[in-house]
């Protein structure tokens, strides 16, 4: 039993990390009232930048390369998301359409630049990806240590820490209150002297940074290279985690972890005696069935921020 858990939990953790980070980005954006379908595109951008930076500067930064890579991916993700902010906040374009455009643009740009710079459809594998480690001290704790702290990626814990910070920022600081109020009732917020536009800009840019972070973490822990099929659907899984988690940072984290656990279970189940007899097709669909059951049965009504998706027009009623 213990060794099964020891296999399942680390897999669930590395699977979830990119989803958690990206979903947090989604939470920020949507809490401020800007729908962000473009999470997928932001992840693509993050993955692309993370890989390219890593390939280019591996010799310069050595072991620190992956960490610097995800920082750079964060910055570029943030800059890239400004496109979405400008379109949907300043020009009041339809936020969904703008998000879809972000998805197209990121993938097209990533693949195009890869061909331009490397002369082929996909990059080489990076030489300095993230590797799993044992976390000092914590991994020595009996039972819990081997399950949660041995052979794990630091980025998984980074994701969990960021989720807690996001919760604190959104629910315990004046900034968070303003951000949420802008998403619930922008006119009331405006009346109280909050600059709706700049709050929304900041929220979208934060989501870009987190999306970029999520994409680069995915690329550097799992895929190791960049191609058109590196990010396929993870951004939408994150979006699902946002809704599953009821637009709450910790909820989104829980949802992402749940996805990871379900996937991990379905993969590992072939080596669990009781489940070995189950035809593999059922195990393959299990994560999705579990998700639907959880959504339908236990989560209850998920209510989006009231002003989500509505451009704010100053002075209108």
């Amino acid at each position, binding site marked *: 039993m213990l*060794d099964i858990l*020891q*296999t399942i939990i*680390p*897999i669930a953790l*590395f*699977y979830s990390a990119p989803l958690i980070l990206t979903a947090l980005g989604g939470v920020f954006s949507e809490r401020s009232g800007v*729908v962000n*379908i473009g999470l*997928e595109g932001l992840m693509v951008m993050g993955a692309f930048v993370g890989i390219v930076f890593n390939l280019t500067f591996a010799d310069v930064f050595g072991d620190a390369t992956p960490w610097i890579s995800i920082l750079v991916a964060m910055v570029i993700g943030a800059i890239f998301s400004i496109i979405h902010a400008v379109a949907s906040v300043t020009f009041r374009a*339809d936020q*969904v*359409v703008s*998000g*879809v455009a972000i*998805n*197209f643009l990121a993938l097209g740009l990533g693949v195009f630049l890869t*061909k331009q710079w490397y*002369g*082929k*459809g*996909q990059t*080489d*594998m990076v*030489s300095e*990806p993230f*590797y*799993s*480690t*044992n976390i000092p001290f914590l991994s020595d704790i009996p039972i819990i240590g081997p399950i949660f702290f041995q*052979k794990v990626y630091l980025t998984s814990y980074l994701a969990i820490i960021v989720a807690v910070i996001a919760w604190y920022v959104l629910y315990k600081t004046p900034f968070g209150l303003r951000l949420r109020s802008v998403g619930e009732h922008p006119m009331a917020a405006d009346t109280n002297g909050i600059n709706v536009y700049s709050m929304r800009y900041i929220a979208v840019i934060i989501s870009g940074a987190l999306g970029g972070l999520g994409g680069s973490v995915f690329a550097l*822990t*799992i*895929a*190791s*290279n960049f*191609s*058109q*099929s*590196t990010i*396929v*659907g993870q951004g*939408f899984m994150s979006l699902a985690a946002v809704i599953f988690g009821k637009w709450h940072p910790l909820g989104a984290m829980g949802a992402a972890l749940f996805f990871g656990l379900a*996937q*991990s279970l379905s*993969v*590992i189940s*072939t*080596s669990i005696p009781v489940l070995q007899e189950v035809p*593999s097709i059922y195990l*393959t669909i299990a994560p999705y069935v579990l998700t639907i059951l959880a959504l339908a049965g236990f989560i209850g009504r998920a209510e989006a921020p009231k002003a989500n*998706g*509505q451009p704010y027009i100053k002075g209108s009623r």
Partner: protein
Amino acid sequence: MAGRIQSILRVLKNLNKNKNFGGIILKKKHLLILFALLLSFVLVLSACGTADEDDSANPADDNTETEGTDETTNEGTEEQAEDTNFKVGMVTDTGGVDDKSFNQSAWEGLNAFGEANGLVEKENFDYVQSSSDADYSPNLNRLVQQDYNLIYGIGFLLMESVTKVAEQNPDTNFAIVDETIEGDNVVSIRFKEHQGSFLVGVAAAMKTKSKKVGFVGGVESELIKKFETGFEAGVKSVDPSIEVVAQYAESFGDATKGKAIAAGMYNSGADVIYHASGGTGNGVFNEAKDIKNADEDAYVWVIGVDRDQHEEGAIGDTNVTLTSMLKRVDVAVQNVTQQAYEGEFPGGETLEFGLEDDAIGIAETNEEAYTAEIDEKVQEFKQSILDGEIDVPSTDEELEAYLADL
């Protein structure tokens, strides 16, 4: 694609103008969001789809993918030997001509053919890239109209398009890789992947210390089954007591799942994993390297597929790639093109390329891991296959019969 979306959006807008239809009041926003979500999903799914197919094509096709040279229309099968008007073209699948896989390999085959015969790129041989599934037929037709003599469809994804276009243009010659198409003007190029898988199975059996090896497949299908059964037969031929665990990711582009499956297999004691899963295999390499990074002495190996995946296994000064099963699409493409060039296009035939044509092979790049001892054993079995003493199984039933005979 963009055009399609625009038109959908336009329709949506019109819908919104008549908010009240059928007595139901639809809110514009909801409708739009719904549609956009749907659209995005369709996009993602289709992206996944093509990726998967590509990948699936990859493992299988790597070496197989197509060759499509046409000998064409006007000249049909007339003598073509010294004919500098000979034009051969290939249509890639969505992987593109630089996919490090079968599309690229096929293109290398055409280049080799051109070089050997002193022909000119663009004039005598060329390729057309497909950026989506919808491009296959138009691309094929374009080459037909430009009087190409032989046109390759690279990969099983092009099967329907090649079938249709070949029927409509009986005077042009076609070839398809990794699929079988009936028709006098079509050559079907297939590979005996099970033979190569058998040989890497022998290598895996020689290498394993734990007596347990793994197989990671892309999507469970007839094609990937050939890899699995060949591999298992090879392993058991060396030592029937070695356990072979097989698992399918049901995707050719899901590195996460590949990594998870590999983690599960290595944790449960397997020490050599053979993958036939395209991009999913990236996750397998990733996991093996991760284990190696944590413990330099860890005994974990990966066997690559389609082309030499030595590069993917590099970590520091060592390499986790034991060997790779090579599928030489270029060899097959060059071979068929040459025949067509000489006016002997084998129309209507299904050509199966295998060890005897050097179209299937085994990589020996990692000399440290792939020892002389292993090589000796592999060569021994290779000879037996070539001599016809071993008939490598390619389906579950054949495998069962084969194992019973051991």
